[in-house]
């Protein structure tokens, strides 16, 4: 198990909320990162976002002191993932997109390269069919913000090898994370519980039972949630949440996972949460 941060070279595919979160965590822990996305525009914004997130992490005392940052390289060429020791896929939760990216990455890297999907809901076994070596694929569900929340959910697929699980455990230790390992299941533990909770919270607002402030206030005040479900939805991004709910609903048939009209209307209007400055709550301006 390689827990020394200098032994790791990460490639991260997808420079959205989670891609920039994980990049911040890795760079802040001294691990070099190649961050890949489709356009220079996206990558230019990602660089600024990552710089802000690094400052946020520093304020919260979340990074090891006196450790030099890892180098950050951004690229629009997927071929640049080839030299990494681990590739993390963090693209949108749309099966066709994930399938395409994972297949291409898998064909580019050498055997022995750990392939992580930061999947929200799509099962690891389903993704294993899309890659060349399914035994080297493992799910790691980083939380948001990844650099502040130490715990991660690790999903071991049916075919994930012991060596892969050991490699990912070493990487997470090098990044200062704690891992809890679960078996594969669409939505896993966190999102099978969390996504229907957020959707139901939105339904309560839609039905006029309570305002967003009151719903979150009750979950925070009575159940001890540190961030209420609707604030959490805004943090995830309501467009991403709808994608994940659709995956859960299509695969599990759970009615509480059918995205409610209020959530869909917010997505249509471009009120996607913190990243656009407004979702269920108003954040004044777009926050990274």
């Amino acid at each position, binding site marked *: 198990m390689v827990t020394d941060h200098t032994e790791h070279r990460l490639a991260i595919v997808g420079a959205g909320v989670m891609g920039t979160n994980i990049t911040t965590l890795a760079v802040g822990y001294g691990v070099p990162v190649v961050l890949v996305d489709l356009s220079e525009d996206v990558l230019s914004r990602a660089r600024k976002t990552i710089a802000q997130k690094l400052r946020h992490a520093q304020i919260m005392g979340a990074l090891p002191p006196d450790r030099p940052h890892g180098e950050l390289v951004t690229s629009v060429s997927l071929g640049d993932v080839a030299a990494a020791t681990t590739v993390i896929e963090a693209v949108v939760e749309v099966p066709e997109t994930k399938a395409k990216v994972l297949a291409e990455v898998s064909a580019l890297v050498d055997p022995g390269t750990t392939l992580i999907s930061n999947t929200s809901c799509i099962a690891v076994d389903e993704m294993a069919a899309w890659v060349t070596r399914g035994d080297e694929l493992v799910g790691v569900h980083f939380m948001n913000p990844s650099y502040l929340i130490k715990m991660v959910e690790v999903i071991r697929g049916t075919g994930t090898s012991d060596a892969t699980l050991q490699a990912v455990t070493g990487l997470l230790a090098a990044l200062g994370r704690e891992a809890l390992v679960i078996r594969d299941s669409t939505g896993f533990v966190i999102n099978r519980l969390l996504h229907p909770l957020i959707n139901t919270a939105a339904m309560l607002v839609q039905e006029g039972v309570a305002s967003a402030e009151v719903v979150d206030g009750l979950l925070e005040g009575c159940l001890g949630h540190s961030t209420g479900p609707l*604030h959490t939805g805004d943090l995830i991004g309501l467009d991403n949440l709808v994608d994940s709910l659709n995956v859960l609903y299509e695969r599990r048939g759970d009615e509480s996972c059918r995205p409610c009209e209020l959530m869909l209307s917010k997505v249509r209007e471009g009120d996607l949460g913190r990243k656009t400055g407004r979702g269920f709550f108003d954040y004044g301006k777009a926050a990274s």
Partner: protein
Amino acid sequence: MTTEQTAELTSVAPEAIAGALLSFLAKRIKTEVAPDQDLFKSGLVSSMFAMELVVHLEEAYDIAIIGPELKLDNFRTVEAMTALVLRLRGASGTADGG
């Protein structure tokens, strides 16, 4: 830029900074706070709000908060943030002495 905005940007009297911060907080977190109240310990704001405070102070007072100044203790209270602004304005030579 209007005259009013210019005046707001360059007004670095401690009372003015503290007053503006108290108004900003009242608007953003919909709660009246005391100048010495610990915003984070009292649970009024989450860790995510820390970055919003940084960006607000940098834009409102034309300062760069970097290096060792990036620590939570500088943002816990209105008093601490006022002191931070005065310190950084003084260090950059842009303070008007007011």
